[in-house]
């Protein structure tokens, strides 16, 4: 599936969710397509922690659906993330793992593991009940509502082609991302983040 077309479809359909993007192509492409600065946390360079940061958000905000994007490079660094996700079993956490089989943020250097392992099978063997594998736009379009709208933790592998071009990072400093995102959560019904009283 074409990476950009895949993300354009997701951006068009995921209108109300809170989004956490991982480093490299996921953040860069989401930014290029949407330019969003409020409901998206561009977690650049966390080396595998995007879905767990998303889980922390989802844990305290059960009324929100929180969508995390990881790359296959990040996933291979820390596949144990799935064990924590399974333990938490958060019904409002949806995790997409983008398998493009290259390190997209470092000039598409080949990533060898995608040819060797079945990521969806790893998720299933980790005890995750709702595992999806989308290799075509048609399949993604048909299965997306089931994954997102039906309550229950879900993990999906997005089989995409390498992007094949370099994109700039979102032009946002860390504190700006924090405040825009946190204020969005506060403004849309979340608990106080910055305005929470500091305990005495």
């Amino acid at each position, binding site marked *: 599936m074409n990476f950009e077309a895949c993300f354009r479809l997701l951006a068009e359909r995921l209108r109300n969710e809170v989004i956490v993007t991982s480093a490299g192509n996921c953040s860069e492409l989401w930014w290029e397509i949407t330019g969003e600065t409020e409901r998206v946390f561009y977690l650049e360079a966390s080396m595998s*922690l995007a879905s767990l940061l998303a889980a922390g958000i989802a844990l305290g905000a059960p009324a929100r659906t929180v969508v995390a994007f990881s790359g296959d490079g990040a996933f291979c660094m820390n596949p144990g993330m799935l064990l924590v996700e399974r333990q938490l079993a958060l019904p409002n956490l949806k995790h997409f793992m983008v398998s493009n089989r290259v390190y997209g943020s470092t000039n598409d250097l080949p990533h060898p593991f995608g040819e060797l392992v079945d990521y969806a099978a790893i998720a299933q063997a980790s005890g995750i009940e709702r595992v999806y594998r989308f290799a075509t736009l048609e399949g993604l379009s048909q299965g997306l509502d089931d994954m997102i709208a039906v309550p229950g933790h879900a993990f999906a592998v997005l089989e995409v082609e390498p992007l094949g071009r370099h994109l700039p990072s979102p032009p946002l400093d860390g504190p700006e991302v924090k405040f825009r995102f946190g204020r969005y959560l506060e403004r849309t019904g979340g608990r106080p983040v910055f305005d929470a009283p500091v305990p005495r």
Partner: protein
Amino acid sequence: MSAGGADKAGRVAQRIADVAADCGISLVASLPDGWITDVIAQFAADGRFRHVAVNREESAIGLCSGAFFSGIGAFALMGASGFLTCIYAITKINYTYQIPLLIGITLRGRPGDRAKFHQSNGLYLEPVIQAIDLPFVPIERADDIARIATAYRHSRVMSRPVLVGFTREVLRGEA
């Protein structure tokens, strides 16, 4: 450890949990170190907390950092060695985005720690903490346990992580 020793360690664990609850912490993510098993067991059994056993220490950093955005007070608890694997996560997530976080560690490798494989922590743990300018609150006596709340507040005020470090003597109720 004797029955009396276990009682003392249990009371310390209870005290740590009480201070954590009183200052607004309700999520604890941990990976064990032999010195903090009583503390972890206390958090896991205590209904005031959601305890999450993570697969690696960096996952605790990610999870607790996310929890900040949903207004949950969080505590990442781990051993010294595990903390040293978190330098990247702390500096890339919490420093870059200025996300507060309370981290608790064991002060392994100090004189009195008989584990040879922890002596590297005695040499490098505190210099690494200083090298990344991470505010550090040692918990060396029972009266220091209340400083966990101070450290938590300080983290929120300065929008950065703050570290509390427990000595073996405190955790065993001997100091």
